[in-house]
């Protein structure tokens, strides 16, 4: 496996690989998201307790799950860049932070818009909501640290340490609904054993979830490639890749001769 992985530590190989991957990921994201969201909004049944407001679920839950899994992925990348000094994993970590922050914000906002009709309040300082808000601030901190230093290596190190320290927040978010009494309902989807969802709610959820997963991969690929280019801008392969177009003036002159 290491032999197979090894070439992808080369920024040039990874740049071209992600470039080939991106059209497929974009197409899948468009297909899954359009099917999933139409299904969620029009064809999925209303909840017997929450009525039509349950349709917020199809955005809220995937966004909340991805807000945590992107942080987890970022923590792994940060760990690799700290321990093995892998420049690419540092670029990956800095590419993931804004995407994770966006999904955390979506989870918080859709949660508030769901909480108002169901609980009667936009916001409450309970364990699940507060720890998710801390996650958003952790993302902001990581993004700020990545941009705070001229030297990308120093910035990456500082951001990686914050990322790893902040990862203690992940289990707190995950188990907050079990450890503390909270307004937030318990797990619906990831519950092991008997699923607490009917199939006609689970399928649109799954398709939305996959659609968001593909969308996240596309955006992370774009940002990752941007990071690779800006960090390797002095390398010959980048210079060759981004040769400025030959100005037509010189060619006409040579033709005249």
């Amino acid at each position: 496996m290491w032999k197979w992985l090894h070439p992808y530590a080369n920024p040039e190989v990874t740049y071209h690989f992600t470039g080939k991957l991106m059209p497929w990921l974009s197409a899948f994201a468009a297909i899954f998201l359009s099917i999933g969201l139409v299904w969620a909004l029009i064809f999925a049944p209303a909840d017997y307790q929450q009525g039509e407001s349950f349709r917020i679920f199809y955005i809220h839950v995937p966004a909340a799950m991805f807000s945590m899994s992107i942080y987890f992925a970022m923590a792994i990348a940060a760990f690799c860049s700290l321990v093995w000094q892998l420049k690419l994993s540092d670029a990956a970590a800095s590419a993931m932070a804004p995407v994770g922050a966006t999904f955390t914000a979506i989870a918080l906002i859709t949660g508030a818009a769901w909480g108002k009709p169901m609980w009667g309040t936009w916001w409450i300082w309970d364990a699940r909501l507060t720890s998710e808000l801390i996650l958003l601030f952790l993302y902001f901190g990581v993004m700020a640290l990545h941009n705070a230093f001229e030297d990308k290596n120093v910035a990456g190190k500082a951001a990686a340490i914050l990322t790893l320290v902040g990862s203690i927040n992940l289990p707190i978010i995950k188990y907050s609904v079990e450890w503390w009494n909270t307004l937030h309902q318990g797990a619906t989807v990831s519950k092991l054993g008997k699923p607490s969802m009917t199939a006609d709610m689970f399928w649109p959820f799954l398709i939305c979830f996959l659609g968001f997963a593909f969308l996240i991969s596309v955006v992370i690929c774009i940002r990752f490639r941007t990071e690779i280019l800006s960090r390797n801008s002095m390398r010959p392969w980048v210079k060759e890749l981004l040769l400025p177009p030959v100005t037509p003036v010189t060619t006409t002159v040579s033709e005249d001769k």
Partner: protein
Amino acid sequence: MQFDSFSAFLAMGGYGFYVWLSYGISALLLIILVIASNKQNKAVIDRILARQKREIKLRNAASQQIQQQISASASVNNTEDEIKKENDSNEVLS
């Protein structure tokens, strides 16, 4: 199909405001994220291209300067040679 009419679809059983608020803000944030990421990508590519252009320009200017110096020194050599030749012919004549 869960809704009888389009207005029922918009009303969402009385929860229309909250449902559309959620979907609207999520779509807005995601569109901003995608556009901003693409813009940053273009900005980095443009920056590298601009620097490449400047480098090529500088290199061209430098090579032109060298060529000018070479041709200038060559013409100096030519005049020196001509003077030498004249002197030689004078010597021969004398």
